[in-house]
């Protein structure tokens, strides 16, 4: 019972504490700007937009 109680209370303090600290840090660091525009990071010059990257295996050319 005591272990569970510590878990509950400690968990709440830990969760909200982490959240508060992180929030303060994030606000100061300017984390709330520039949330858009990230959809293209998975492409690069080697595998550019417009190039499919998967296919059923094809029979080897004889």
């Amino acid at each position, binding site marked *: 019972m005591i*272990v569970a109680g510590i878990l509950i209370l400690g968990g709440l303090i830990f969760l909200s504490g982490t959240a508060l600290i992180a929030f303060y840090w994030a606000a100061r660091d300017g984390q709330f700007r520039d949330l858009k525009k990230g959809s293209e990071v998975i492409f690069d010059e080697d595998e550019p937009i417009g190039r499919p990257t998967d296919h059923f295996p094809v029979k080897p050319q004889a």
Partner: protein
Amino acid sequence: MTTLAASLNPGLNERTLEKIERSAIDDSARLPVLLFFGTAIFWLVIGSLLALVAAFKMNLPGLMDGEAWLTFGRVRPAHLNTVVYGWASAAGIGVGLWLMARLCRVAMMHTSLLIVAAIFWNLGVFVGTLGILAGDSRSIEWLEFPGYSTPILFIAYAFIGIWGVIMFRFRKPGHVYVSQWYLLAAFLWFPWLYATVNILLIWQPILGSAQGAVNWWFAHNVLGLWFTPIGLASAYYMIPKVIGRPIHSYYLSILGFWSLALFYSWNGMHHLIGGPFPAWMISASVVASIMMFVPVITVAINHHMTMKGQFEGLKWSPTLRFTVFGAMSYTIVSFQGSMMAIPTLNQITHFTHYTIGHSHLGLYAFFTMMMFGAMYYIVPRLVGWEWPSASLIRWHFWLAAIGILIMVGALTLGGIIQGLALYDPAVNFMNSMHFASPWLWIRSFSGILLTAAHVIFAVHFVMMLLHVGAKKAEPTLFARPIPEEETLTA
């Protein structure tokens, strides 16, 4: 961009460097990810066989009924836990780690520890499954593994989760892709979920019906905050990457992430509508379940708009085929889940096979298909070999797709009929069972299709590891880099 390769050989161009970097990351991921995949597929086959035993026991109650370790009440949780922890979690971990490494553009470090973690994870599943069959099941749904196996799983997981977070911490600068959000969240949520229930339900059990609340908070969140984010992370990477077109709206994908995080974690209590709890807890869950329309619609719109005009890709890409099947199932299963939380409908579907159909729609048609799709993409890049047979992939897909559609259809219809019988005070209880019976036969039949699909996939995976098939003169699409050639042609 400066990499090791660039400093060694300044003459290489950007494109080649990217290729080398990517293949170095894939190389670093090879052993741990393949180990997770291989063991996952093993447990998938074992879990399917256990499912068949359990399913046929419902049709033929006399089947092997003298054996304690094969009684329905042990085989069913053994099935659930092998597929949830042995298959789905391990597959998700493999996909998650690989995606994380690739998106953070960092190689996995100290992979030997990850390999140890994979071994421990499987040891935990093995010990736990034997424990259930031997009669140590705790009958706490989704947490049947006995207390002596869950710590093994937890310790193994700790390493895995820490690795995921570490990779994120050391990522290359640039935008954080939406898949990374999902993965990071999943890696952080799971240990919290698992630790909480282990302490509150196994080590220091809390009392009374509060257990039910904690139990379903956990069971539903394993699906919603562990499997779903990994599945969606995979879809958000695979769909754009395979067809070569960025996701339709990045803004929508982020909105979808936050609304999922907010609403899903409140959903669990809709499994206990009418149960012994204060009304507000149930109401909160019902409201949150209905609010799930928001993240689901954003994801559905986003994937559909990305795929628009590209559906031909389903013909040529195995990954896309499985992933799109999974993504569509996600929309359907989530809508169905929201509807089931409405108390009027819940009165009928609660306590019936309908719920089982819903679970399979979620865990199989959505998540498992998503994992198959990701594996078809990842494994060739890890082993440097193409899938030996296109027809085996096709067999796998059609058996799995048709099998799961039949299964969900049968359980849904059978469940509604059973539910109406259970609801009507004039109908004798025994009839509710008899009405459902033919549908359960169909369910068992569909289980055979799924098991066949899994065996085919397992065989194909082993062929892949053994490099069966001819080396292709013209590599299809994922050619591993040969820098010399590359610099000549570039």
